[in-house]
């Protein structure tokens, strides 16, 4: 049952006593939600259970709950449910983004400041929030010293600004032609216009005018510190500025990029 004020002489029913017992034992009445929801005062002492296929939020506002009130929050849906500070503050050592079958307890320190105890992440254990991936097999050949897109790109919208992104890149079918002994290939990973990592600096250089083929791979941790759509891609050029270098050179090699959002 939701929190209420009892009066002197009030007689409790068996149903009320059962509900109180259930709440005292860590359960309580459950309110099922299928869309984003703003907590109300009557949610104190209850369980708010989200069940939605898409991303949702549960918003916490001030002046609704008293110090010591609690609300259990559960997510049973496939969409990530994020506990969101509205006008109240919400602090946690874990994550406010709840994947399916995760949950936690919202405890109000004051009427305007809540603590969220993530049952999965207590202790700061990290978890995977989402995975995005992409592949390409289209050949791209560059004979210039200007960076060109390899065609390998993926976009992720982080659930939390505190998340880190594990970027896993496999750039296949990299090749330098045999038209120049000085030919080589430089490859980098970028986020937007920012270089995340130089993957090959004058890679494939041999000093001999013969074709060389290879593949490059790298795993990188990035902290974009945003909840906006963020695009990662690879770019390459030929530092020799003549002859050429290529990625997916035969048009059949499959390059891949995998973005994994890891909750802090």
């Amino acid at each position: 049952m939701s929190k209420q004020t009892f009066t002197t002489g009030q007689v409790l029913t068996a149903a009320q006593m059962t509900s109180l017992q259930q709440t005292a034992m860590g359960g309580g009445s459950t309110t099922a939600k299928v869309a984003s929801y703003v907590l109300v005062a009557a949610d104190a002492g209850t369980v708010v259970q989200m069940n939605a296929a898409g991303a949702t939020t549960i918003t916490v506002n001030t002046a609704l709950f008293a110090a010591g009130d609690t609300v259990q929050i559960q997510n049973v849906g496939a969409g990530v449910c994020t506990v969101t500070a509205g006008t109240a503050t919400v602090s946690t050592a874990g994550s406010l983004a709840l994947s399916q079958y995760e949950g936690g307890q919202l405890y109000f320190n004051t009427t305007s400041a809540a603590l969220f105890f993530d049952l999965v992440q207590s202790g700061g254990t990290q978890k995977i929030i989402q995975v995005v991936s992409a592949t390409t097999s289209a050949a791209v050949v560059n004979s210039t010293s200007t960076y060109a897109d390899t065609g390998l790109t993926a976009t992720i919208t982080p659930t939390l600004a505190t998340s880190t992104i594990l970027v896993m890149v496999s750039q296949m079918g990299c090749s330098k032609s045999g038209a120049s002994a000085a030919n080589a290939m430089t490859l980098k990973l970028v986020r937007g216009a920012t270089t995340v990592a130089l993957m090959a600096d004058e890679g494939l250089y041999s000093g001999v005018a013969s074709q060389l083929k290879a593949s490059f791979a790298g795993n990188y941790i990035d902290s974009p510190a945003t909840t906006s759509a963020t695009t990662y891609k690879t770019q390459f050029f030929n530092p020799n500025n003549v002859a050429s270098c290529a990625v997916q050179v035969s048009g059949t090699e499959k390059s891949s990029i995998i973005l994994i959002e890891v909750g802090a």
Partner: protein
Amino acid sequence: MATSGEVLEMLCLAGGWIIVGDTFEGITWTDERPRCTKAEFEAGFAQYDAWKSKQDAKAAADKATLLAKLGITADEAKLLLS
């Protein structure tokens, strides 16, 4: 079968281009270095193998001439470079 990059390198060895895929429309010309036409590019796929054979033969002949001038064999040249 030649790749689009090989054909462009044959026709525009000086560079100055980026190509995505196999069609002329996939070419980005980055500066004013000599360019090829669409007709030259499309004909280039059939011409590449003969051009490459000729290039390889010329390189082999140049190498043989140089070795003769130096009075050493190819294996001896490799030994010098090792």
